[in-house]
């Protein structure tokens, strides 16, 4: 957080059918619907999140990710980071307060990987959902589906990983938590963190810019991941792979798709980092084990199916 970027705050995902998407994210993933706007966008959050929303569903004729937003500590930081982005050579766009309901002004930019990101300092504080602020109970009783705890990170596929690394590390203050290097020593995957978490955003090398691999939501336990797998079968939801463990980050995970073909992950566990930790490195020839620790084999779908 050395430049004042605090955490992932939101992701806006394009969906082909808003009602089908709402049913998926609300009833299956277990997010809470918090608002809608005149553009037809639907706002959701996970129950432990303190701000009004973390997922925005945007009806569209083409699925994928519109943007991912990071919350910064205050307005002064936002002003400074805008200057730093411009000085680095990254143009920014100003999105006025209220364009997303309950969110302050946003600074939007496109990373060299082709993905759109935003920074913002203010969002309506609604508190954790379903529990009181004083003497809170352990969890709300009426959660649905997988009972996702929080929006955790996104994985992007795109090119120009080195320039993207430079922007995220040297301008925005992320650090490299984990990486995959090919036989020439070139980085083909970078897991970047702004916290003690294993990753807050990750990038994998891909020839086409701006592709979306998945949005990930945190669960507490392995039992919750198995229960998520049961729910995926019960609802005949499109599964990708899992339950399994990743080598990278060591998280325990399952992947599935929303009704528009956007990939989701729910996971638990995973490594942690402090500033004195060195990045963890995987060699590309061990990529199978790095991605799926048990099968030790790549599933082509995981690498090529993107929105």
């Amino acid at each position, binding site marked *: 957080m050395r430049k004042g970027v605090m955490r992932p705050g939101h992701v806006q995902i394009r969906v082909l059918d808003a009602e089908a998407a709402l049913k998926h994210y609300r009833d299956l993933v277990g997010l809470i619907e918090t608002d809608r706007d005149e553009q037809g966008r639907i706002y959701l959050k996970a129950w432990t999140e303190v701000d009004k929303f973390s997922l925005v569903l945007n009806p569209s004729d083409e699925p994928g990710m519109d943007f991912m937003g990071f919350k910064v500590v205050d307005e002064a930081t936002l002003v400074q980071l805008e200057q730093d982005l411009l000085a680095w050579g990254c143009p920014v766009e100003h999105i006025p307060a209220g364009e997303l309901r309950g969110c302050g002004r946003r600074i939007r930019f496109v990373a060299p990987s082709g993905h759109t990101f935003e920074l913002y300092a203010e969002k309506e504080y609604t508190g954790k959902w379903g529990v009181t602020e004083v003497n809170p109970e352990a969890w709300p009783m009426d959660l649905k589906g997988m009972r996702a705890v929080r929006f955790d990170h996104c994985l992007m596929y795109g090119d120009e990983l080195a320039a993207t690394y430079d922007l995220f590390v040297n301008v925005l203050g992320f650090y490299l938590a984990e990486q995959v290097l090919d036989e020439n020593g070139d980085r083909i995957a970078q897991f970047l963190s702004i916290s003690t978490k294993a990753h807050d955003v990750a990038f994998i090398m891909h020839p086409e810019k701006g592709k979306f691999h998945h949005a990930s939501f945190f669960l507490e336990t392995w039992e919750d991941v198995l229960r998520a797998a049961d729910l995926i079968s019960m609802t005949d939801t499109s599964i990708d792979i899992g339950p399994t463990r990743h080598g990278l980050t060591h998280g325990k995970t399952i992947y599935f798709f929303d009704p*528009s073909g956007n990939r989701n992950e729910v996971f638990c566990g995973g490594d942690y980092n402090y500033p004195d930790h060195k990045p963890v490195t995987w060699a590309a020839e061990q990529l199978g084990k790095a991605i799926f620790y048990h099968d030790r084999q790549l599933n082509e*779908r995981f690498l090529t199916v993107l*929105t």
Partner: protein
Amino acid sequence: MTDTFEMTELVRGLRFNCASDHSLLKAMELAGKRCIPVGCRGGGCGLCKVQVVSGEFSCGPMSKKHVDEASRRCGRVLACRVYPRSDLSFEYRPAPELAGTNNNSNEVM
């Protein structure tokens, strides 16, 4: 009421049945056949694009990046979003930009 129709993949000569409330891709998975790669199953990734050669069908929502109006009209559609209304024949050929990377590898799990 659901009807059942016969699906024929012309390149490999595979046949399987498809209920009218199942997508072409789902019917292939249920029948344990492998002629179309399985991706997101949601009309988003474009992996399952086929050419319908004959027969009637209706379509669920599909990403316009992969199927525009013109290609929908000429039957170049996503198998995960095709619901048959009659017997269908179709071809699957890997898209040129995907050739060699995922023809046979996105198999039914």
